[in-house]
């Protein structure tokens, strides 16, 4: 394999591994703040117990996010020097703002949030929780600004082949940014909702009847039930935005070869790039036209419009985008079914979490990490869908890659893959281990000093 392909696999592996953890920390930070505020308001120790358990998960996820993020900041230079050389004038300031405004904020207050509960007043601990949550979200904002700019670049001019910024407002608020940011933040919320629901269900199945677990399970299913329709709505908006600015990507997502309408919504097919047609296609007539143009016979862009005169494809590879998109949608439907069923079961006869049968709990456990699947599938859709461009219309991926010898890239790739695989397994294992330990009656409590501790004592007695 050549350096380009190996470097792409390496960066893809790295960013896939990385995104697993920010996806959790972005929303989990706010959920922790919610738990803390509920505790401050009600003085009910179940919220502090929930905080104590989930802050551990947060700490672990955060550490994994930090170290995999450091790796990426170096790989820009080691594998993709052409990226910064060409678009450094835009990408540089955005990355710098992420480090300056977000990373240090998170890092400094994380220490207080995790270990400072007994050392600082309660308000400062709550404030630290807020600042960490705020920092993770700010970090997501800056990095999604840069990512969106790579998809839909605006506010720049080319001088001697190098991008120069002309309008920072246009760069930051580029056309796809609001949709991508909202879509990603809600994705993070859903990932965390299913993570909390899954581990809480696991603890109930192990016989943990504590008020804290009941509260987190109810909260998580409710959160998922609210967020999933929002996400479907945002996804639709994002798709329309992509149709306008990156029609080739939409063509690949829909598996549509010839421009025109009406076009069916393809449920399954085998897109064949050599024959330039779909095999074994099953679809709903007019579906794609209806979704993309909101009219029965609307025209859908086709892949054959994006082929150079000599026959080379100027559109993304079709099959990965096509399948990744369907996986994301499929998982979304599962999320909708599970969360709404859960809420309906809890509302029936006002039974609350006691109304959830064991079978439902087992399915919930099976869906613990389903947010990861949807998030990765979504990112593959959009990022592979940007190919062959690294920055749409400005820089191709091929132009940006380093001239490092292929065997060297292969060596580091294998090393990274081994480490990532081991760490993902260890992470999932430790989460269930922590849940087991808590379910088996070892309470995980983290209390701020002063009055809060007194409440816990009284409650415990």
């Amino acid at each position: 394999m050549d350096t380009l392909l190996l470097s792409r696999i390496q960066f893809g592996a790295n960013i896939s591994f990385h995104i697993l953890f920010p996806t959790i920390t972005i929303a989990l930070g706010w959920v922790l703040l919610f738990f803390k505020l509920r505790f401050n308001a009600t003085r009910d120790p179940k919220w502090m117990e929930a905080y104590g358990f989930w802050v551990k998960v947060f700490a672990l996820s955060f550490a994994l996010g930090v170290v995999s993020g450091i790796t990426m900041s170096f790989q820009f230079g080691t594998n993709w020097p052409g990226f910064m050389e060409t678009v450094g004038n835009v990408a540089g300031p955005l990355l710098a703002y992420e480090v300056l405004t977000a990373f240090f904020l998170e890092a400094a207050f994380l220490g207080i949030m995790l270990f400072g509960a007994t050392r600082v007043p309660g308000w400062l601990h709550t404030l630290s929780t807020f600042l960490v949550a705020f920092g993770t979200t700010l970090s997501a904002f800056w990095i999604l600004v840069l990512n969106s700019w790579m998809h839909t670049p605006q506010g720049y001019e080319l001088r001697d082949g190098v991008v120069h910024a002309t309008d920072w407002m246009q760069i930051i608020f580029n056309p796809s940014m609001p949709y991508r940011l909202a879509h990603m933040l809600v994705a993070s919320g859903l990932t965390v909702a299913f993570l909390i629901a899954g581990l809480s269900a696991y603890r109930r199945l192990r016989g943990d009847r504590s008020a804290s677990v009941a509260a987190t399970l109810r909260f998580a299913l409710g959160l998922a039930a609210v967020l999933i329709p929002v996400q479907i709505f945002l996804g639709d908006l994002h798709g329309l935005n992509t149709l306008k600015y990156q029609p080739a990507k939409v063509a690949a997502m829909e598996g549509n070869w010839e421009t025109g309408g009406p076009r069916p919504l393809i449920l399954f097919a085998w897109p064949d790039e050599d024959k330039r047609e779909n095999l074994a296609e099953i679809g709903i007539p007019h579906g794609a036209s209806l979704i993309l143009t909101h009219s029965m016979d609307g025209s859908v862009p086709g892949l054959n419009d994006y082929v150079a005169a000599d026959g080379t494809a100027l559109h993304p590879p079709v099959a990965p985008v096509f399948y990744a998109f369907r996986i994301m949608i499929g998982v979304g439907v599962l999320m909708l079914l599970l969360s709404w069923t859960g809420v309906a079961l809890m509302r029936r006869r006002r039974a609350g979490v006691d109304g959830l049968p064991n079978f439902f709990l087992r399915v919930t456990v099976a869906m613990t990490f389903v947010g990861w699947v949807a998030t990765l599938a979504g990112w593959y859709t959009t990022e592979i869908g940007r190919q062959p461009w690294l920055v749409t219309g400005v820089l191709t991926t091929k132009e940006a890659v380093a001239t490092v010898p292929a065997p060297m890239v292969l060596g580091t790739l294998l090393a990274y893959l081994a480490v990532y695989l081991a760490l993902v397994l260890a992470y999932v294992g430790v989460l269930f281990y922590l849940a087991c330990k808590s379910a088996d009656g070892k309470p995980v409590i983290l209390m701020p000093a002063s009055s809060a501790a007194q409440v816990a004592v009284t409650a415990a007695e």
Partner: protein
Amino acid sequence: MFADPAVWLPFVFAALMGLSIVIYVVLDGFDLGVGVLFPFADDHEKDLMVASIGPFWDANETWLVLAIGLLLVAFPVAHGTILTALYLPVAIMLVGLILRGVAFEFRAKAPSRQKARWNWAFFAGSLMASLAQGFMLGLYVLGLGHSWAALGFGLLTAVFLTVGYSFIGAAWLILKAKDDLQVKAVAWARGGIWGLILGLAAVSAASPLVSARIWEKWFTLPAMAWLAPLPILSVLLVGLLWVVLRRLPMERDRLSWVPFVAATALFVLAFLGLAYSFYPYVVPEQLTIYQAASAPESLWIILIGTIIVLPMILGYTALSYVVFRGKASLLTYDLIVQSPAPGEAVETKLPR
């Protein structure tokens, strides 16, 4: 000269990058050093050692991200050249940083039978990162070439920097630990000081020998007179460390801060010497900061942000060090440990 932003902006950014690097080397130096010292400690001491760096390591590593970020944003061409030349050591350092960063969390949360494995990962990761950084330092000083001499020199600086880190790590533990662990840390510091001395000597001797330009910068008057304080201060500091380390630990914990402060000063002096040698080059003998700099309008927008945000960063970093000041105690989420009010040393562990 200072009327033209294209002239002074690159200089300001080189200075900011230098500041980030030196803060990183001191801060992550001590926590990497603590990791390197791990095999010499028993289980209880290991927990205390991790507790002494637990609240800080993440912020410490962020300075590396800032340094590499500034290199990337202010000198994009140099970023590519340097990092592709250092491809393998960078990869080793990254794997090391990954291992130790996650081992912090896993060793405290994984089932206890796996703790030994994560302790080992913490040590191995710290060692890999330290060695890789020392190796990169050596290659950089010799001009990023890949001759056998450069590799040999890189291996030498790898060992020296690692021992140097273990020294500042031990100095940190002298400050943060008490009783047995503090006594041990003093012994570790006595054993590690040579790494610092040899490292300083090797880099100081090699850089002027490799480059006639650097030789000229150091050994012509009047520069030589201006620069004399650097080596003289360094020798004085080493002497001070030598004397103090023979007497520590002292009654009522007196002077336990001296080794860490002196080690920090030594790292800063060494860095100043390096910075002076290599200025104005960012890629040694190939690319100056002025040739490699980004467009002024992009540097401006970062500079404005930096001026506003940097004081805040320093402020809350300081806050975090103040909150976790004093001797380190075990970090745990599982117990309610009430911090003793001033004057009373009560530790309450509340059962369910």
